[in-house]
């Protein structure tokens, strides 16, 4: 072995990014003799903040042995099967981005092309009527996958987790797992030959071989320099307001994103409250106006509102010398689609794949940076899509239509408009069905569909469509309502 192993990892940061990093690295590399030390800075979350998580988080929780029922019970969290996008006050504009597949393959080919063809011939049935997940969400039910539904298609889900409580929960897990935890209000970064030598605070000095920057502001990685790419020109919002509203009587199994002249208002139900998020542009709307717009659009009384600045963008290299930036320190995202934790997760999974075995880890670092750049850029593209192709009224949305987009996104939109297909890139986090939900939802009609489906007789397609719609109806009726399921989780906790 040419160089010593890097066995002492110091994770510096706050909130979920800090605690996910510490727990994941400890769980995965503890057996390799890796020690994790956590340095916690003051959290930035209020009780109104929420993580509306995407389906992959469940697998990460499994690796950390986090019990789903216990987590939701402790946090008062809820399930979510997707997000409903609607222009406030306009009937007929709603479409659901469901966390599951739409339709099932015919003759081994994607459902979507058949639907496109049928719609061209006058089929009056919407895309989401073929989605188990979307249909369940609309009916306030969950969709617990089994063999039959798996054969039909993917039925995934995420959670609405009160963010501050989630971070506390993860911190407890870290403590239970033997991770040393330090708390401090501020840190000093001590430079050394390898990059960062130590973190100093309150007269203490914590040395390490590898440092994870989960501070959100890039406190560690900034000390080493390196360029940052701004994505401001791709996103119309530069402010986000977060507030809390009373819970719904029956808790919806999805989030709702309502667009209006001042931006968009997101409603994310959990058991104890409805988390409200308002994205807006300071040039078009004051904080005060944003607050009123959010309350009015939500139709709920808002409290505990805070406003934060948005500065979307990413570092050219998330890993510099011996510092790896995870979460916002690496890439800061627009609040749309709530990709933050997914980005944390991707950053950690890749770090584990290339965790340095030696100090001269140039190749691993280069590969990590290459993959993460592409992963973050594709996440950004997925967010930018909704803004770019929106059909909503108001100055905010007119501005959104003018935003700059990447060559990859431009090509994807063009190919969809031409043929209804989604160009496949290696480092993509969202399924083609997610992309199509927005493209179709905003009314883009492709000029053609895959010609190879014309070998399937139209009668066959009709029969299959009838079967699918029947199957969706029948399966969804068998599912528990979201409320009933949450209650059963609560009861299990007392039993």
């Amino acid at each position, binding site marked *: 072995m040419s160089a010593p192993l890097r066995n002492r990892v110091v994770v510096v940061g706050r909130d979920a990014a800090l605690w996910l990093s510490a727990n994941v690295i400890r769980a*995965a590399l503890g*057996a390799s003799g890796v020690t994790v030390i956590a340095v916690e800075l003051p959290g930035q979350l209020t009780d109104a903040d929420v993580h509306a998580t995407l389906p992959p988080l469940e697998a990460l929780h499994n690796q950390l042995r986090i019990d789903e029922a216990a987590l939701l019970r402790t946090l008062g969290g809820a399930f979510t099967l997707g997000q409903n996008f609607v222009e406030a006050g306009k009937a007929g504009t709603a479409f659901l981005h469901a966390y599951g597949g739409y339709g099932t393959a015919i003759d081994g080919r994607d459902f979507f092309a058949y639907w496109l063809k049928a719609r061209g011939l006058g089929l009056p049935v919407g895309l989401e009527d073929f989605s188990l997940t979307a249909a369940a969400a609309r009916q306030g039910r969950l969709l617990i996958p089994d063999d039959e539904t798996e054969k039909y298609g993917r039925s995934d889900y995420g959670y609405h987790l009160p963010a501050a409580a989630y971070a506390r929960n993860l911190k407890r897990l870290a403590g239970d797992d033997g991770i040393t935890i330090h708390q401090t209000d501020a840190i000093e970064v001590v430079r050394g030959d390898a990059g960062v030598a130590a973190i100093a605070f309150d007269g203490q000095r914590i040395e390490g071989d590898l440092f994870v920057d989960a501070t959100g502001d890039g406190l560690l990685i900034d000390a080493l320099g390196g360029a940052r790419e701004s994505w401001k020109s791709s996103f119309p919002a530069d402010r986000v307001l977060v507030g809390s509203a009373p819970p719904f009587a029956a808790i919806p199994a999805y989030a709702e994103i309502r667009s209006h002249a001042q931006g968009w208002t997101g409603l994310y139900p959990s058991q104890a409250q409805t988390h409200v998020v308002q994205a807006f542009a300071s040039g078009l709307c004051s904080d005060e106006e944003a607050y009123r717009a959010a309350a009015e659009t939500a139709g709920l009384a808002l409290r505990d509102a805070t406003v934060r600045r948005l500065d979307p963008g990413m570092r050219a290299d998330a890993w510099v010398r011996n510092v790896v930036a995870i979460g916002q320190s690496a890439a800061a995202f627009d609040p749309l689609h709530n990709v933050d934790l997914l980005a944390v997760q991707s950053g950690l999974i890749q770090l584990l794949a290339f965790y340095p*075995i030696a100090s001269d880890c140039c*190749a*691993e670092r*280069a590969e990590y940076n290459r993959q993460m750049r592409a992963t973050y850029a594709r996440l950004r593209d997925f967010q930018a899509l909704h803004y770019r192709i929106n059909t909503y009224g108001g100055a905010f949305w007119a501005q959104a239509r003018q935003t700059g987009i990447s060559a990859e996104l431009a*090509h994807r939109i063009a190919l969809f*408009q031409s043929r209804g297909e989604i160009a496949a890139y290696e480092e993509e986090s969202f399924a083609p069905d997610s992309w199509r939900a927005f493209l179709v939802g905003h009314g883009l009609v492709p000029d*053609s569909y895959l*010609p190879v489906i014309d070998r399937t007789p139209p009668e066959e397609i009709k029969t299959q469509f009838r079967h699918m719609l029947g199957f969706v109806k029948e399966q969804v009726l068998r599912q528990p309502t979201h409320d009933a399921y949450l209650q059963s989780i609560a009861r299990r906790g007392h039993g």
Partner: protein
Amino acid sequence: MKADRYNPVRVVIVGGGTAGWMTAAGLARLLAPADYDLILIESDEIGTVGVGEATLPHIKTFNELLGIDEAQFMRDTKATFKLGIEFVGWDQPGQSYIHPFGTFGEPWAGVDFQHHWTRAMLAGKDVGPLFDYSYAVQAAARAAFEFPNEDPKSIRSTYSYAYHFDAGLYANFLRGWAIARGVTRIEGKIVDVRRDGGSGDVDRLTLESGAVVEGDVFIDCSGFRSLLLGQTMGVAWNEWSKWLPCDRAMAMPCARTEPLVSYTRATAQRGGWTWRIGLQHRTGNGMVFSSAFCSEDEARETLIGAVDGAPIGEPRLLRFQAGRRAKGWEGNVIGIGLAGGFLEPLESTSIFLIQAAVVDLANLMPTRGGIDRRLADEFNRLYEVHYDRTRDFLVLHYCANRRTGEPLWDHVRNMRLPDSLAHKIALFEACAAAPDYKYGLFSRDSWLAVLIGQGVVPRGYNRLADRLPADELSTRLRDLRRRIRANVDAMTDHAGFVAAYCPAPVPDTPLESAA
């Protein structure tokens, strides 16, 4: 654009070799006959190159798509089975390895196998070569064959297979298949290509007979000439001889020799390399060489020395250059096969690249509405992915060698690599991570085979592998090797399997070969 809303789109395929007839057959199967008229122009006077007699497992998908009966097809093309390629002397003389159509080991504790193997190897354990952990390698090494087991839990399910066949007979086979399904074959030589004055698209071809063929979409399968894509549309050629300096091949079949092995052999030689492909009735042989480092006489001598059966005819010379067109689709012209690009037959990729282009084209085929730039953009993006990744994989076979003192091999060892490849090698050396694409060639296991086979040794591994206790790792490695050996020992030999499953009529049928 002449296509209108009521008439079928006229698709004209120029050239009738392997590329032309695979394209014709694939499109005839995939597209609705009411919407597309498929026309293929070929000339009996123009010979075809007959690319490759060895294939990749993907060809099974293509044949299944066409609904071709495997045993029948194998009898007709005098085919044998192929479990991989043996590379002899590529790292250094006296050494060899097999690149299998199969996996290495199995993932344990969620970590790919090579990391476990590397961990044990670096710890000084007696793990043996990585190749001991590939079922396909061990089966090929014993000249054995059986169909893979369909139970994914069985060690016998961890491989796939391809074929060695007579490419000329395969083109004949597809010609009959395609014509029976409505493809119009026109015999004749093209003497003039006309482009529309406005769009610049090709709109008609004139044949020597004076006959005129009009079309909406033209597929150039004219081989190295690249009559439409290169000559007419003027699409530039990106040449890669700075990485792949071989530019000549000499082919000379010989009589069948025993044993009938279930793999292709590629043997490194001073000025290039020789191939050996065992079919049922004969063995295909040839030498690929670089004219900068090896004369034709030396190549001929090397080839004749390498042939292990009675020669059939005289060595036949081919000239080529490695590279691809800047675009595979320009205007209304799409190049498939050698008209679009050429990579030497080292990894039997020619037929795969044709197949990939046919499937992509079927999905992106223009409709009656006319040519759509956006579809061409996607085709070109995929075309680049296929060619460029295949190129990196081929270059790896050359650059990682220890044949010092031989000018060709010294040259390729010291040349400046494509950045994408240099990075892949450095990454593997550092931490045993091999490329793992979601789309396109080659698979992670293929990269592993050639990286390890060419003597690239990792000095680190994914540390998640440490979650497996060291003694459990040793036990698992031992068990896996034992399981593979026991199963391979029970396999049928390849020659016997072929004789029972798909014997070609003996003696040779008078079926003419187009090659």
